[in-house]
């Protein structure tokens, strides 16, 4: 059957036959880079239009319906508009850092793509510390935000950056602990092994209550970490300025905007991998025939289906819940999420040792 894995194999074979191994590797890296950028572009377009549709339907509106069939080309038109807009740098801004910040945000997103398993045996880099890598790299994104806020020479931007900084740093703790829940159960930091360990059922079913708690905490924490409503304090608390990227315009703003959506995709992909089995089809224990039928659906469809399900959840939150104040936000993290996830990790450890999971 047609699969990502086969195509990658054929390309790899052909390159190795035509060039010597070093050049083949270089070409493969270039191809991967181009593919990732292409994926970013497609994701940006798709997620923006999806968000606007979800928002419209939830608010009983129509949403974009002018450009293209059913408004599907709206985000493309937006991109063209952003491309032709003037990119301004405010007077007195630290030009180098100001211009660097959006690229850091994108770079982080790109690096995070590396360990994600998009389909069976289809991963950019199958590293054995995948989970650690993801949590380490994702904390770099806060540097891009602080850099943008600091370099803008605008006190609102700086305050916005500090708010998002505080938010991201604190929510990373609960996100990390809830990721750890699955790591404890699997006994591996390798994302591919984590997926393989779910061949007889996804962790959210196998680990029942504690993993469900971890999953809920994970979703809350990553929503906060990607600066999305109801935790979009980066967008300022009450005034209509956009926090740390107030001063950005045109394509540089678009990069931040894109990075936000890519980050949503990435955290959802990781959540899907850890809790919902990644590309693993829906398997139930040892029901061989049932499992076999499920295997007929391509693994990439499983992966993207779960990821988009989680993206939908996060969008659903955004258009339902009112925005939190900064004190409520930190309260939620330090008073509720963190203690609960600490208790939860104890429970999961006990569960892993005593074998209470399926």
């Amino acid at each position, binding site marked *: 059957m047609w699969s990502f894995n086969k195509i990658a194999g054929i390309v790899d074979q052909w390159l190795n036959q035509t060039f010597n191994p070093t050049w083949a590797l270089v070409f493969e890296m270039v191809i991967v880079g181009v593919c990732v950028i292409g994926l970013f572009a497609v994701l940006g377009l798709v997620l923006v239009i999806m968000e606007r549709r979800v928002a419209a339907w939830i608010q009983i509106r129509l949403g974009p319906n002018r450009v293209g069939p059913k408004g599907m080309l709206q985000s493309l038109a937006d991109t063209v508009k952003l491309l032709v807009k003037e990119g301004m740098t405010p007077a007195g801004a630290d030009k180098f850092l100001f211009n660097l910040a959006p690229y850091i945000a994108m770079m982080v997103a790109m690096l995070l793509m590396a360990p994600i398993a998009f389909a069976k045996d289809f991963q950019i880099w199958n590293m054995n510390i995948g989970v650690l890598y993801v949590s380490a790299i994702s904390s770099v994104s806060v540097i891009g935000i602080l850099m943008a806020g600091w370099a803008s020479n605008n006190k609102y931007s700086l305050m916005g950056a500090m708010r998002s900084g505080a938010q991201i740093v604190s929510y990373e703790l609960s996100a990390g602990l809830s990721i750890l829940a699955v790591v404890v159960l699997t006994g591996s930091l390798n994302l591919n092994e984590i997926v393989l360990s779910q061949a007889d059922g996804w962790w959210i079913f196998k680990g029942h209550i504690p993993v469900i708690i971890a999953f809920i905490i994970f979703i809350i924490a990553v929503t906060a970490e990607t600066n999305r409503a109801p935790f979009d304090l980066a967008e300022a608390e009450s005034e209509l300025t956009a926090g740390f990227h107030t001063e950005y315009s045109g394509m540089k703003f678009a990069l931040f905007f894109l990075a936000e959506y890519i980050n949503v995709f990435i955290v959802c992909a990781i959540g899907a991998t850890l809790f919902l089995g990644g590309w693993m089809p829906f398997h139930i224990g040892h029901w061989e025939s049932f499992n076999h039928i499920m295997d007929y659906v391509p693994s990439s469809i499983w992966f993207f289906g779960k990821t988009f399900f989680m993206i939908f959840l996060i969008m659903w*939150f955004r258009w*339902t819940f009112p925005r939190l104040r900064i004190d409520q936000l930190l309260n939620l993290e330090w008073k*509720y999420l963190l203690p609960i996830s600490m208790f939860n990790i104890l429970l999961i450890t006990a569960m892993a040792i005593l074998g209470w999971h399926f």
Partner: protein
Amino acid sequence: MFITNYIKDVFGALKSLAVGLKRTGYYFTHHKEIITEQYPDNRDTLVMADRFKGEVVMPHNENNEHKCTGCTACELACPNATIKVITKFDITPEGKKKKAIDKLVYHLELCTMCNLCVVACPSDAIVMAQTFEHSVYDRSELTKVLNKPDSKIMEGIE
């Protein structure tokens, strides 16, 4: 006790979030009832809400007569100095002088549609219209004279 309150808090919060999600989830799955007005596609069938106020106008009857006595109550009532009543003196058939309006100037760009002038008018000479497509290229086009040229005050209005 602290711990029970804490747990109650958490469950109460989760429950209230679920209630919200249920509502929006209902809207999401029942997206046929659209409340948006399809303006400008439905310009011909567009129905404005009764309470909508678009601009102040002065109705005239078929004989080009209005009810304004030039009392300037509307001018005094307006918080934005949107209305200027320019008065003149008419000579009645009996040879008496009588106050009347020369022009009732209305600056649409200053108006907040607060309706105070309409309430203040003792002779109900002005009302709120439901027009709304007011954009023009030149600001001066928004300055309007409410009484029509050569219009007169209606008989019997004092």
